[in-house]
């Protein structure tokens, strides 16, 4: 059932207005925080208020303006879009709290928080995009809005990172644009409301070019190897930016785009006929293993996190490319699982750097005694990534493995197992150092009069995120949790009544 509802356009508009107000009145710390929190709360409320409807199968739509005859800027909150916007709007609130603490005393905070809000606005725009044109508009806007955040430090290193970031993403955007235009030319529509708009009539060659263009276009942000080069370099940005954008917004928008291409542009049936998805699945499997292997060798904390992100994102791509309902469930649910676990880690790493000045894994001996709560959160996130049962990451791997078996591709199960081992290989040394080694030199104590291990605006988001990782794993089947939304989304894409085995 489709319902016209203005909330789908209000949600991105709220954060856009917030950005405008931050730019206008942001010199005052009070107003900057006020607008940001007000908007973040309103937006989360808007998205949450649509959730019950989504679970009942309602799809909210709103056509904004016609851009070209028949194709407008339109919004449509289907289950998958709702799922993604739920993740990003929840994390906006948490990241904002964290960013306020982290950026204290930093320069150019008006610019920082303004573009921060713009980025979230475009992320929600992407998740509610009704057609590929709207998707592309927000996708490219996100690229532009993240640039000032990446180069925030204004050092030559940051500028270089920004240049590389733009080169990758804009060329990717060019491919996505060509892909969208070719799709329109062939299919006559760009809507994402159907399970597939292309048909085999277009010819194998044309369809291959479209597939390549769209997958390259969105795969750049999803960090599929060999298109991942920007991601580790962009870690030069302040940690809240890395957290929200390079573990959640930017990269997830790419992964979201890849899944939209597979499920809504090509459709499962057509891709099964064409066989394009199998090489993509192999590429994703390669990325999973290679990303993890490189992560093993990284001593710089944020870079290790970055390569882990590259590896984890390809779970989503792999899940989508397997073209089975169970694998799709894994792909969608992993958007949330990875987001919360990875943002926990980024928050912890940022808190460590902010509190102690340490940036390298080898410097972390005994940190568990100095920052016990943060490291507890880190451990939870790490366990989730390794895929220990009852943690969120396990659900992804379980469904991904089932989906691979459904597709008669047992060797991807092997990939899962090896990847779990690799994950353990690069997360557990950190935990080992934190708890089981004595500090090389005594950790500096908290400043007098401060009881917490680090500033409360840093610690609170960390703990909430870690708690949510636990909840995602333990209460997956509870209605209203992301998992149920993911199931509705999968039912829609495959036209199935239920997929729980």
């Amino acid at each position, binding site marked *: 059932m489709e319902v016209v509802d203005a909330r789908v356009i209000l949600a991105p508009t709220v954060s856009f207005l917030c950005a405008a107000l931050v730019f206008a009145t942001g010199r005052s710390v009070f107003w900057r925080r006020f607008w940001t929190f007000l908007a973040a709360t309103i937006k989360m409320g808007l998205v949450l208020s649509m959730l019950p409807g989504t679970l009942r199968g309602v799809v909210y739509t709103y056509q904004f*303006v*016609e*851009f*070209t005859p028949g194709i*407008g*800027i339109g919004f449509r909150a289907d289950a998958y879009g709702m799922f993604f916007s739920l993740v990003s709007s929840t994390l906006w609130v948490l990241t904002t709290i964290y960013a306020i603490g982290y950026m204290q005393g930093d320069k150019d905070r008006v610019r920082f928080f303004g573009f921060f809000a713009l980025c979230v606005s475009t992320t929600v725009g992407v998740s509610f995009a009704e057609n590929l*044109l709207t998707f*592309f*508009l927000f996708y*490219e*806007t996100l*690229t*532009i809005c993240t640039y*000032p955040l990446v*180069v925030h430090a*204004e050092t030559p290193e*940051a*500028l270089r990172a*920004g*240049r590389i970031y*733009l080169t990758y993403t*804009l*060329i990717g*955007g*060019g491919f996505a*644009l*060509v892909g969208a*235009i*070719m799709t*329109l*030319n062939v299919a006559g529509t760009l809507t994402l409301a159907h399970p597939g708009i292309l048909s085999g009539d277009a010819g194998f060659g044309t369809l291959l070019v479209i597939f390549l263009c769209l997958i390259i276009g969105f795969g750049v942000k999803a960090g599929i190897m060999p298109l991942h080069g920007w991601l580790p370099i962009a870690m030069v940005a302040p940690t809240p930016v890395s957290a929200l954008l390079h573990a959640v917004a930017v990269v997830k928008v790419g992964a979201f785009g890849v899944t939209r291409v597979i499920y809504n542009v090509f459709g499962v049936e057509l891709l099964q006929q064409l066989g394009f998805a199998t090489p993509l699945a192999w590429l994703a499997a390669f990325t999973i293993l290679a990303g993890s292997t490189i992560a093993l060798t990284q001593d710089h904390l944020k870079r290790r996190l970055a390569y882990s992100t590259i590896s984890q994102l390809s779970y989503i791509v792999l899940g989508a490319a397997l073209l089975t309902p169970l694998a799709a469930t894994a792909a969608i649910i992993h958007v949330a699982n990875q987001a919360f676990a990875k943002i926990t880690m980024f928050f912890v790493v940022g808190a460590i750097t902010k509190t102690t000045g340490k940036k390298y894994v080898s410097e972390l001996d005994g940190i568990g005694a100095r920052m016990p709560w943060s490291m507890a959160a880190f451990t939870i996130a790490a366990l989730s990534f390794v895929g220990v049962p009852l943690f969120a990451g396990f659900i992804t791997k379980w469904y991904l493995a089932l989906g691979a078996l459904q597709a008669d591709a047992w060797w991807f199960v092997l990939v899962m197992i090896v990847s779990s081992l690799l994950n353990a290989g690069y997360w557990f040394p950190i935990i080992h150092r934190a708890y089981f080694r004595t500090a090389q030199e005594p950790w500096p104590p908290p400043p007098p009069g401060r009881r917490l291990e680090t500033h409360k605006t840093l610690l609170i988001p960390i703990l909430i995120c870690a708690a949510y990782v636990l909840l995602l794993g333990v209460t997956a089947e509870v209605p209203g949790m992301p998992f149920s939304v993911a199931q509705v989304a999968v039912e829609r894409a495959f036209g199935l009544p239920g997929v729980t085995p």
Partner: protein
Amino acid sequence: MTVPWVEALPWTVVLPLVGAALTPAVAARRPRVAGYWAWGVLLVTTALASGLVVELALRGPFSYALGGWAAPYGIELRFDHFSAWVLPLAALFVVIVPFSWRYLDHVMPAGRLPAFYALLLLNCGGMIGFCVTGDLFNLFVFTEVVALSSYALVAVGGRGLAAYAALKYLFIGAVSSLLMLFAVAQLFVMTGSLNMADVAARLAELGPGVPVMVAFAALAVSFMVKAAMFPVHVWLPDAHAIAPSPVSAVLSGMVVKIGIVGMLRVYQIYYGAGVLELGPFNQALVWLGAISIVMGAFFAVFQDDIKLMLAYSTISNIGYIVLGLGLASPYAVIGASVHVFNHALIKATLFLAAGAIIHQTGYRTLSDLRGVARSMPQTAAAMAVGAVSIVGLPPTAGFVCKWFIALGAFEANQAPFGFALVFGALFIFIYYIRMVNAFYFQQPVHAAVAEARDVPLSMRGPIVLLATLCLILGVLGGIPLSFVEPAVLDLLPAWGP
């Protein structure tokens, strides 16, 4: 009661021309009055033009017979969908003139102001006349009015290279005008008529032949020179970079479009007549357009002077338009026609913002202007919006044309040009990102830049307004379309290979 808007058609042309003639008299005692006078005249002209556009939207194209002599014997003014361009054209002048009030104080002695504004009005009147005339000889006359006033406007800044740039512009422009005169004469001799619709009809009776082709070639080359298309672009960069910034905005945004509108008129005649196989010509246009895009971007990348860089990017953008025309598929031509306006808007934003920055700091190269965004936030923000827009990234006006022309390329089965268009645009972003970096993310090297104040409201207002429009038209990209689409669909049945 319905307002007889048809009667307003001649006035939109006459008003700026007469206004120009009166400017020195009005401003005889106090030269500054010239600026306000010109603005008033342009406001009225814009109001008339909007009436005409409304009339066009309601009732379709209409004609006005000068002196009551019906076409083809009398001179006909014709307002069709391509003529709707006069409204944004006049409106852009209305925005540019207030910017000039304060800007010109540092550029020229007050005594020259009346002459400057008179030339500006003449230029505007000439372009409006060019767009609404239905007569070939009038087309030539208005081209000359525009050209001569443009030469003078380049030179009016009066310093160093200005005279040289104006002279170069004059020589090349004169060759182009001569070619046009030759073609018009040729067509007159062949058909005995100067009315465009009539010429088309009579050419159809005459049938194909070498003279018909020669006339076409002469017109095409003449208009290409006016449009500054590669390889006949050499006059443009110096002229546009050296002129005072408001003039640069007019020249780069609008005067070069005379060549494009002229090309559309030539198409109307020749497609109407159907005497010439234009497929090979269109294919040549596609190639020239693609080369223009790349060459313009290539030269722009190596400039340090911001205005020179903007001038080169005009060549790139004319490349888009010409590429779209040559592709000859509905979407491509629609995109090209829309870009005639969108590019004018973007280029006006950029040149005015660049002018404001140069005006306040006294520097004009990127390396000198580092960190200027801190001292002039609004102007720099407008410049950044313009930069994103001219590269054709969403959600800005520049994206609209890229979308349509690329769509047209695939529609016309010319996929490689679709790719060339999308990625050629990114090439030029190399330059603009350097600009954004210099303005925003680097430390000032000159005290004058660090301590500069943002421009006064009369200059800032127009800049911010234009930048906002760049963003709005990116989202509401469908609006200009509704005017261009009927004209293109009228033209196209006979169009294309």
